């Protein structure tokens, strides 16, 4: 029967995978979609740290939502799922505190070591009783972009928010607006429905329309690398290449090429690889040896990549360090 063939094909595929949940430290990492360029780097960092777990006979398991439509509740469910799956330690981002905090509290109540990373800051870690926070401070990342663009003379800026409601994205935008204001500019927010995140066409069209309606805007701040590329495309479609300047969160090869080509002014790097790597490594060592990191709030950003250091960063990418 055809059905049997399907099942056989999938079985072969699955057999090649390794078995999970061995004796050593089993760390569960909650994060974004694996096909999100930024999160794939966080995942790689976590997996590289996981080599140490495997050395001890343990494992690192990545749990991510299929999409970002229902981000807070979906992530909260993944946290509870990690508890159910018998995690020795859990790494998670505090994206939507109202929805996710009860799940994190359940982790701590179950006596499972917890590290908050990527979003929430040390405040979230303290509030929830987590061991540490590993990540960039969202507000400062946005602020750095605002100051950078305003000091370069582009004083009317808009933050392109494609994930309304996520606490870290709101912080990017308010930081950007304050950074603009601190350097004598003005900032605003272009709000898109949550479905727009990762949908380059929708973001580009919204940016194009917004720029044509608001000709005074000379600076944009995008909250992710896909959105940055979409915003650049929107600027191009509005016929404003060169007069509207872009900074964006995160980077990948195409962002670096943008900076080399001059279509993008700067990228704010929160160094996702480091977030996945250190958050996971802290917990592996804690479960295996009981060690702790007394330094609280391990910052991985913001770092600014622009024309002055882009060559160095590209060398770092080729060496596998970024």
């Amino acid at each position, binding site marked *: *029967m*055809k*059905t049997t063939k*399907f*099942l056989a*094909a*999938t*079985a072969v*595929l*699955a*057999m090649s*995978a*390794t*078995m*999970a*949940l061995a004796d050593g430290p089993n760390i569960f990492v909650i994060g974004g979609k*694996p*096909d999100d360029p930024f999160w794939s780097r966080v995942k790689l960092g976590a997996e590289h740290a996981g080599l140490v777990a495997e050395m001890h006979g343990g494992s690192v*398991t*990545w*749990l*991510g939502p*299929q*999409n970002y*439509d*229902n*981000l*807070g*509740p979906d992530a*909260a*469910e*993944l946290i*509870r*799922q990690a*508890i*159910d*799956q*018998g995690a020795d330690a859990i790494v998670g981002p505090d994206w*939507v505190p*109202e*929805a996710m905090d*009860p799940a994190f509290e*359940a982790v701590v109540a179950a006596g499972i070591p917890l590290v908050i990373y990527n979003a929430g800051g040390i405040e979230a870690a303290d509030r929830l009783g987590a061991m540490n926070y590993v990540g960039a401070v969202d507000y400062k990342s946005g602020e750095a972009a605002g100051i950078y663009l305003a000091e370069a003379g582009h004083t009317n800026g808009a933050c392109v928010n494609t994930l*309304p*409601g*996520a606490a870290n994205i*709101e912080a990017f935008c308010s930081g950007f607006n304050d950074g603009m204001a601190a350097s004598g500019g003005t900032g605003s927010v272009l*709000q898109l*429905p*949550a*479905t727009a995140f990762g949908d380059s066409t929708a973001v580009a069209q919204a940016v194009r329309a917004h720029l044509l309606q608001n000709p005074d805007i000379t600076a944009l701040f995008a909250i992710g690398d896909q959105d940055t590329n979409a915003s650049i495309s929107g600027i191009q479609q509005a016929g404003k290449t060169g007069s509207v300047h872009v900074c964006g969160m995160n980077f990948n090869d195409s962002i670096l090429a943008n900076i080399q080509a001059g279509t993008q002014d700067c990228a704010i790097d929160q160094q996702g690889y480091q977030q996945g790597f250190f958050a996971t490594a802290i917990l592996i060592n804690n479960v295996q040896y009981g060690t702790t990191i007394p330094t609280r709030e391990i910052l991985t950003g913001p770092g600014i990549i622009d024309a002055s250091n882009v060559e160095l960063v590209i060398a770092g990418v080729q060496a596998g360090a970024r």
Partner: protein
Amino acid sequence: MDLISGLLRRPAAASVLSLIGVLAFYVLFAGADIGKLAGAASWVNYAARIGIVALPVGLLMISGEIDISIGAMIPAGAMTTAIISGYYEMPIVFGMIGAIAIGLIVGTINGILAVRTNVPTLIITLATLVGMQGVVLAGSKLLTGTASVPLTAPEWAKTLFGDLMFGGSHQVLILWWAGLAVVFWFFLHQSRFGNWIYAMGGDKESARNAGIPVDRMTILLFILTATAASFVGMCNAIQFNSAQVSGGMNDIFNIIVSVVVGGVLLTGGFGSVTGVFVGALTFAIVNKGIDFTAIDRNWSNLIIGIMLLAAVAMNESFRNLAMRAAPSKRRKAKPEGPDGSIVVSSDSITSKK
């Protein structure tokens, strides 16, 4: 032997077998720990979320229509609750009434447009889907200034609609799903309305000529789908103390796929509540169970696609089996529809008329 072949011909048989197949695959080939999987809440919670909406959507699809505006109605229900009772701090009852009311309104609009125009309901509900996404985002920005609204529900509301049961991770929504499944089972399989729905899915014109109030039934079914979706949204807002604007695009596909896995024909006229119930369960296990296996997450969507295809292929072959076997021997008197579709399934021949 006769008992077994009789069971196999029921519309729910294929979906039950797909469920067993999926479980066997995960446990035997992908290294899932059956104990951990059975004890975990994530997939049951997810099954309840899509299952509550899948029940009325299944009935609607049996009647030959479709509703994709459900995707927007889940966040609409959540946002209505959170704006009324969270932002304006009115008693939670008003937020709940508001959420149900928005389901009633949009469902009525869908239903009236469906019976008054010749536009396919896929297009009508596509319009209300996109329209409601706009209403929810614009309304939220206008009223609250943000796209995410926190909500603190009182204890009794949490216990009833949005709490975890027995100190574990299972949501109370699961009980609602089970309860509603029983109600829908009576509605479709034990009341005359059920036969009407099958008849509508077989041939709308003949159903109308036979005296079935096709228009009123269609409007009722659209109200049920929209209200079920806004109800799930409301429970979610109460459970997770917040609501956010979102498109809900993924929910549309997941709900309709689980209905199809449950053995309902996209063309209408065939399906059962048991099948839809098991379909939601199967889809949830396919979707969430992959996290319990050793399969690399990068492969997960491929596996989900293949397993769904296998489940639907199984449905197809079992339905053919049922079609070939059922009418000839035991159900001699029951006519087929004009296009060869069976208007009356074996499950529906229970009304005593």
